[in-house]
């Protein structure tokens, strides 16, 4: 790997008929690196791959390769090859001709094609399979033919779209190692799309975490694992305890009422933060003399370790340990300073375009009128911005509220769940003490004094 930026995405956006797939993405890909685009389905990772391959064009922004804009370069002229999600091997050609396809198109002479294809077959452990048809191969073999078909063209960049998704666990593990070895041996840049965080952590030089078309974090596997930038990354990559806290001063954080030493600084004094502690970094110690103790709520054997939940009054720590502890036992826990990773609190406010009705003391948004104070100084039907803090949104039973929506996502933040609710094309962020199933219907209500109204500058 060298420091040269082979591919650069500059302020790239892409939408499909109004649905944003990628929003103002900036990313550079270094020559020879193994870069993974990681995120849940619908996060925009495949869109990014297809943009680089040239199958789709960005709505905004530029994609550069070797410093030149490649907007007008069709896919067949790009020195990029793709391993497709379902392989897309040609069913009318045998294995040899599938691999030889690109070479024949380029007019390479027959003898050379034969040498190159045979070498590729050997590289992917399919020697002697040249005469077989695609449907006669197993999933793993098809997958390797797809890799061979792409690599034989000696591309500068190889794009892989969830190539191991269809394989069983054992084969997937083997292929992960094989792919990584291949990439290192050939020195080709790999851009790898997956939703499997473990795959991303084992194979990549760089991981790009995406959510809703926005890059959440770019970093090495150890960076994104040990220093996640926000609760989403922490939650998505590996298991974690995410707990809100207060940064008292540099190197001191209070979590669930207990002050811990930590290694982070620069957050100011008494700042609200989120902290991440990985389950394997917490030690179980004898309860006597421990600063924090709690009761073991559950113990599950996971093969290599036990996963232990310890209720320390107000917060349930998830701990991974190789030593058995009994359920209901009283144990102490100890968290070393370097196990605590502090993240800036993601400030989230619900902001809505609203219309003011000062004479009635109401504002209208999400198709409903809310009683609201502080409307002095606004004219009737003025366009305003209504802001509601997530903590002030009360989620009720659907029949108890005039406004209802459907749960889109629910994420545990240590002491409570953060719930996003879709309602009349608007999205609400709210907090809940209980887990809510995505798709569940819920009522939404807000007290009059919790809505703050300001002039809508956009109008």
């Amino acid at each position, binding site marked *: 790997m060298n420091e040269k930026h082979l591919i650069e995405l500059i302020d790239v956006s892409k939408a499909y008929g109004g649905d944003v797939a990628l929003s103002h993405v900036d990313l550079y890909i270094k020559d020879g690196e193994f870069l993974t685009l990681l995120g849940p389905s619908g996060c925009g990772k495949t869109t990014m791959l297809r943009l680089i*391959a040239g*199958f789709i064009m960005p709505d905004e922004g530029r994609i550069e390769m070797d410093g030149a804009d490649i907007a007008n370069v*069709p*896919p*067949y*002229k790009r020195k*990029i*090859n*793709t391993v*497709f*999600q*379902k392989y*897309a*091997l*040609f*069913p*009318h*050609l*045998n294995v040899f*001709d599938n691999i030889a*396809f*690109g070479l*024949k*198109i*380029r007019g390479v002479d027959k003898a050379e094609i034969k040498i190159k294809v045979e070498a590729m077959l050997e590289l992917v452990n399919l020697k002697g399979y040249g005469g077989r*048809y695609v449907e006669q191969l197993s999933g793993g073999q098809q997958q390797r033919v797809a890799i061979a*078909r*792409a690599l034989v*063209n000696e591309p500068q960049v190889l794009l892989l779209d969830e190539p191991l998704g269809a394989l069983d666990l054992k084969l997937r593990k083997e292929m992960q190692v094989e792919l990584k070895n291949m990439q290192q041996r050939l020195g080709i840049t790999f851009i790898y799309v997956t939703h499997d965080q473990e795959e991303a952590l084992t194979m990549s030089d760089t991981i790009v975490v995406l959510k809703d078309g926005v890059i959440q974090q770019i970093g090495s596997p150890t960076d994104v694992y040990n220093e996640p930038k926000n609760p989403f990354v922490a939650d998505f990559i590996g298991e974690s305890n995410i707990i809100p806290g207060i940064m008292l001063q540099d190197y001191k954080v209070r979590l669930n009422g207990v002050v811990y030493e930590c290694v982070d600084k620069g957050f100011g004094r008494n700042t609200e933060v989120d902290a991440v502690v990985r389950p394997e970094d917490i030690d179980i110690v004898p309860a006597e003399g421990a600063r924090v103790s709690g009761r073991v709520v559950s113990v599950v054997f996971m093969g290599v370790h036990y996963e232990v939940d310890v209720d320390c009054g107000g917060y349930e720590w998830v701990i991974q340990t190789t030593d058995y502890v009994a359920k209901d036992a009283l144990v102490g826990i100890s968290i070393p300073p370097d196990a605590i990773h502090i993240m800036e609190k993601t400030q989230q406010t619900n902001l809505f375009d609203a219309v003011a009705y000062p004479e009635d003391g109401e504002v209208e948004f999400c198709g409903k009128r809310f009683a609201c104070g502080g409307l002095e100084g606004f004219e009737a039907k003025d366009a305003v911005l209504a802001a509601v803090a997530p903590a002030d949104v009360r989620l009720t039973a659907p029949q108890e509220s005039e406004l209802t929506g459907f749960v889109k996502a629910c994420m545990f933040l240590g002491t409570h769940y953060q719930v996003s609710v879709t309602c009349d094309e608007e999205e609400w962020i709210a907090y809940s003490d209980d887990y809510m199933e995505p798709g569940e219907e819920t009522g939404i209500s807000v007290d009059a004094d919790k809505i703050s109204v300001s002039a809508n500058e956009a109008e």
Partner: protein
Amino acid sequence: MKRSNAKKKPGTGAFRIKRSLFAGPYIVWMAIFILSPMLLILYYAFTSDGSFTLEYLRAALGWDYFRVLLDSVRFALYTTVLCLLLGYPVAYLLSRMKKSTAALLSVFFIVPMWMNFLLRTYAWKVLLGAFTNILYTESAVLLGMVYNFLPFMILPVYTTLIKLDESYIEAASDLGANATRTFLKVVLPLSMPGVVSGVTMVFIPSTTTFAISQLLGGGKTMLYGDLIYMKFITEQSWNAGSALSVILLVFVLLSMALMKKAERGASEEEGDRLW
């Protein structure tokens, strides 16, 4: 579920109907209107006044009649090739369009099929007579045949193309093939099963057609169908007509077997041959 329940309680199955029974009406229909006429044709072809003879069959294999068969095959080949040349691009364009647009456009191919083909052919006769001087020529016959059989080429090709996975096209493009080569090396070979069934559906009816050549060819173009028609209706010689029919039947069966073979080849070996 219901069936297995019924098996467990045979007492309740007094009026139980076997599924195969539903095929009954059609089997009766086939026996009366398909099988028995065939047997009659065979009977007439090999007999004369009730006694066995090969005389009519020998006559039917004579050069004069055989030449008409060759002519029919020639016309059928022209028709098939023209339908393929006209129909494939249409099917291809339709398959690349938005589903709703394609559905709307395919109405234009399907609606004329709702009308009896004799009416359509009469319409051509009027049109060709009024606006051109090709009526009662081979060109007019060919035009009538292509017009009538074109939908049978477009539909099967369109159906195969629409099922073609977009990722094959993307893969070809990804591997360096421009639009033309992607078409020649991927789209065309993969659509061969549709082409073969389109060819079958055009070639066989074209070989056996008779009314079109009579109406638009004005009797100058004699096709095998016309010949059989003439033997049966004009000459009232059921034996001669049946003998010709048997020959045509054998020819059709042979060509269908050939197409079947080509179809199997299209899905397995086509790529190899095209490369």
